[in-house]
């Protein structure tokens, strides 16, 4: 494999996707933000360009901006164990439970559990995911805890859910 300078994939993606916004994070990672319809295509292109290692895929809930960002951290690791390239790939979704995004688990199998975790914690669903279930919370849990508008509840001590919800609403 030929060695590429870090950030090469980011620049190539910029050429391929005209509406991609390229920035740099405070610690020097290239950050590419793509519009939502281009998510799957950008991921596939990034994989083709050699970003073969999905380190993390997560979401951030910006409650004031009414937005959710899905953020993936990608590396390219070659057979000699060198970290050849890196990229933060982002997209924006409107703020609502049940918003969906195409799954990238077929591109990086590693994404499977990460997407389940994002679904569990933020309520974003992934189309085409092989097995989209909650992963950390119990199966019958009815909220998405890492959303900023999540209302913490005391364990059920005989008080009905409605009472607690009313209680929480009055405090807000």
């Amino acid at each position: 494999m030929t060695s590429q300078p870090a950030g090469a994939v980011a620049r190539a993606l910029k050429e391929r996707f005209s509406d991609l916004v390229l920035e740099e994070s405070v610690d020097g990672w290239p950050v590419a933000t793509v519009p939502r319809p281009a998510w799957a295509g950008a991921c596939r292109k990034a994989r083709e360009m050699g970003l073969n290692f999905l380190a993390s895929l997560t979401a951030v809930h910006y409650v004031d901006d009414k937005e959710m960002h899905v953020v993936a951290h990608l590396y390219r690791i070659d057979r000699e164990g060198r970290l050849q390239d890196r990229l933060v790939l982002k997209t924006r979704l409107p703020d609502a439970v049940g918003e969906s995004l195409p799954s990238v688990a077929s591109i990086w199998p590693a994404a499977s559990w990460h997407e389940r975790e994002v679904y569990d914690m933020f309520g974003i669903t992934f189309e085409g995911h092989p097995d989209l279930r909650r992963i950390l919370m119990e199966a019958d849990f009815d909220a998405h805890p890492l959303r900023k508008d999540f209302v913490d509840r005391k364990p059920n001590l005989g008080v009905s859910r409605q009472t607690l919800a009313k209680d929480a609403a009055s405090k807000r």
Partner: protein
Amino acid sequence: MVPGDAKEERGANGALAPAMAQGVDELEAIEKLEDGSKFLELSMGPQHPSTHGVLRLAVRLDGEQVTECKVDIGYLHRSFEKFAETWQFPQLAPFVDRNDYLAGTLNEHAYCLAVERLLGLEVPERAEYIRVIMAELNRIGSHLIWFGTFAMDLGATTAFLWAFGARERLYDLNEVVTGGRMFPQFFRLGGVRNDFPPEFFPMVEKTLNDLEKSLAEYHGLVTGNPIFRARTQGIGHLSAEQAIAYGCSGAMLRGSGVPYDVRRADPYSIYDRFEFDIPVGENGDVYDRYIVRMREIEESIKIVRQALDGYPRKGPITAKLPRRLKAPQGAHVYAHVESPRGDLGVFIVSDGTDQPYRIKWRAPSFSNLQAVEFLAPGLMVADLVALVGSVDVVLGEVDR
């Protein structure tokens, strides 16, 4: 890990791990298929010694062969990421110890690195040396625990007791320097809490010398053992491409022949100053992961010795911190270190206050464990135990 149920007789191949017999009682269902064959659905865990804490494997068996394996996690979920959003940056440093509870120092290193990059803090050289020495000692301790529990998974109780004896010495070192044993709570943003006390230096020298002798004994006891080899060689084969695709790192990836080590691939702290090798395996099986970790102990000993030689006796051990920490608005950082289990990453998003807006803990065990679902089909039940053992999973960081 209670060695109470090790009474059962085992076959020539160590066919059924002793504790597995309990699992059979927890039989969930025998399903009859159209062709008359029977499948057994077995729930291994969550309270099962060979599942290392609280991991549940929902296994479907054909005879003694695994046809499907679903990993069920979340039993140790403590909402770390949610909790972290309500605390200030310096307050959180001791708490991250609890994620990977066998390698507290490494967790603190990753967290402090991320926050320091976010705030633009410079760590003094002396503090970097102290950090590296403590991190490598912690890595040795973690690998020793893994060695002991892994050998016990395969039925070797002696190795378990020996490894825990040796680990105790490393925890004594932790105690002398930090006051804590499992949870050192030692790293501070921009440095470390205190200097080494004078009694530390002779103690660490003796511990490392003794450890080198013990390692030779471990190899004599376990590595050359034909039963051990039969149970580990050729089991759970993971190719380099698969390991990368499944996001595996640490000994899982190096066992498959890719010498990816964050200390070398993306050097942080002062790791670029030390000479050390990155052991790799050839076949990517359970045995290779074992050999890689055992050799990593030797490499860590090398790093500690070099760091002790170069350790500057004078100088500050913490950076000057502003009275009130304020991260840049909207900034985010991702820092990663090589933890005993692999590539440990911390992603922090800031909203311009002294609290993190969002923290994502990229736990290496989380990704490594994913590969079990893919590797398990076709294995015998006893080999599944060896496979899960070889992943070196710490549920504290998987579930967070």
